[in-house]
């Protein structure tokens, strides 16, 4: 090894897997910590909405949302098994080592939303990138106005973060509405798409001084945006996180560019106004 150790943006830090929790089919949550406590301390100050690069040595690297809030003590990723690297991670047992680089990206500007109402709209695993913001808002409840969560999944078995959802439904000053596309015998709640919740009797969504967070599959995204705009939301009041194939996370490899923006540097959080001005379809 050479005598100097410069700051290397591509070098992951070693992380150790603590425990694995099954969320829904093909999705698991991996609790982990850095091997070196100094790395843990440096990582702690991430912002909700940021992401990290996860390395499975010998298989590859992938970008992953950071679902924990910086106000929580544990660090974890919630990962769906979609490709070769995530499949390798899904085989991991507690004690296994992998690499983490980050945090990267802009994140949600939670400070600038102070005094505003927050509306979180998520579909399926779209709740993962929003979870950090939700927990952060819950912890700093007094800084925000009304907080509403609208969350839908295909069926009751596909609801993410079930224990957190139950907690949020009980939390003071939190309005948490759930729905599923197809109910089964275990489900007594709402049935239908997420947008349907907006029109439910007893639900009123403030438009003035409100920021709406939207995250979910493309179809859901399109319809929810339409509903919000119809309600009177301006494009700059709607924020979302985008995802792209990414190799470096630091604006060098070029893969994540959408029009004029690097998702890794300028995103992954964009307002709907910014998304329309990127110069390329998302």
């Amino acid at each position, binding site marked *: 090894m050479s005598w100097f150790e410069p700051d290397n943006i591509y070098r992951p830090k070693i992380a150790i897997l603590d425990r694995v929790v099954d969320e829904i089919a093909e999705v698991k949550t991996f609790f982990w910590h850095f091997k070196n406590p100094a790395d843990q301390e440096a990582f702690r100050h991430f912002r909700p909405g940021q992401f990290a690069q996860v390395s499975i040595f*010998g298989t590859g*690297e992938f970008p992953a949302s950071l679902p924990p809030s910086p106000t929580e003590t544990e660090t974890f990723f919630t990962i769906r098994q979609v490709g070769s690297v995530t499949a390798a991670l899904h085989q991991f047992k507690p004690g296994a080592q992998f690499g983490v680089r980050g945090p990267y990206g802009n994140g949600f500007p939670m400070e600038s939303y102070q005094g505003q109402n927050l509306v979180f709209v998520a579909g399926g695993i779209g709740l993962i990138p929003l979870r950090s913001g939700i927990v952060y808002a819950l912890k700093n409840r007094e800084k925000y106005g009304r907080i509403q969560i609208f969350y839908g999944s295909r069926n009751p078995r596909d609801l993410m973060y079930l224990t957190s959802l139950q907690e949020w439904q009980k939390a003071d000053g939190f309005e948490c509405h759930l729905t599923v596309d197809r109910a089964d015998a275990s489900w007594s709640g709402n049935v239908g798409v997420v947008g349907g919740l907006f029109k439910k009797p007893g639900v009123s969504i403030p438009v003035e001084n409100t920021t709406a967070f939207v995250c979910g599959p493309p179809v859901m995204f399109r319809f929810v945006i339409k509903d919000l705009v119809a309600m009177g939301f301006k494009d700059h009041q709607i924020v979302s996180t985008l995802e792209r194939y990414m190799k470096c996370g630091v604006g*060098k490899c070029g*893969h994540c560019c959408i029009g004029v923006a690097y998702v890794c540097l300028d995103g992954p959080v964009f307002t709907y106004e910014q998304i329309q001005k990127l110069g390329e379809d998302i």
Partner: protein
Amino acid sequence: MRARIVQGEDVLKIVDLLRQDHEVYAPFYGRGRDSYFDVVTDTNRDRIQIHVPNPYYPPKRFLLPHIERLLRIRQEAGDWKLEPEYNQVRRAIFGIRSCDVAGINHLDRYFLGRGFRDIYYEQRRRLLFLVNVVCTDPEADIDKSCYCPCADTGPAARGHFDLQLMDLGGEFMAVAGSEAGEKLFTHPIFKKGTPAHVDRRREILDTIRRQFKATTSWFSAAVRYISQGKVLDKIWEEVGIRCLECGGCTFVCPACTCFTVSDRRLSDVEVERVRIWDACALTGYTRMAGGFNPRKAVHDRRNRRFFRKLAHYFMQRELSMACVGCGRCAAVCHGDVGMPSVVEMIRRTTAAKEPHELVRA
């Protein structure tokens, strides 16, 4: 900048001087009109070409190798050990063309600017010495697809080299572009010049600027149309139809920077993480895990290349254009959708569509 005069028979002595503490690369002829950069040795030293068609394989590989190891990753008693490897070799490129000097300047701004510094690039760049040779021979130096006067990068680079040589006919004018370059002037082969030499340089440049065959002086129009989103979709579709998706244009481009990262197994307990040149022309470039590909259509990907190079936004971001006018993309493209022809297509078709309203009297 300070200048000296070197006699024609002494010019390769600069290579000898540099070889004392550098691995020196210089251009050579292949078996035909092809040319390439190779390490100078005692045996090939006399075959170095001053006037030669610019090699297709761009000198950016000395800063961003085709395949570069980022990390050696070893498993020892259950623990993973990461060992980065940085370049320690002092290199010099003798005979780099002005367009490629501008390309390296662009890479510098891209890899070393904007927040995150790329240490692998930096270690190579720090130890790289550039001897620029100005293209003055209209037969050997200037290819039919060269258009550096339009990209404003040549034929004589205005900076970012350590030493610049220009053939004045029998003797060369040497210009120092850095302290390291100026240090060479202490050697006796560098002699004082006269105002007549400076005049001669100006005359030659004035003549050579007229010798370029492909003049794509429509950059500014293309930049404006692309930045304003005025280019018609059917132009991109036309470009997409003609693109064979080989990725050649990006691999020969001195200003293209994209790479992919891959882990390769070296043994049971050891892997290496490498970065490999990648190209936005290739289908897999934007394909995500799970199969979704936001840029599935060829013309979307072609659009991407020209948008990245010509959109005003990126020039503002990097303060240099990601096209240096070397003409390599035009020379290698089978479908004739290199930069000059696409700029021309954009200009011709978009200008014709610009609305004009008559003012009523």
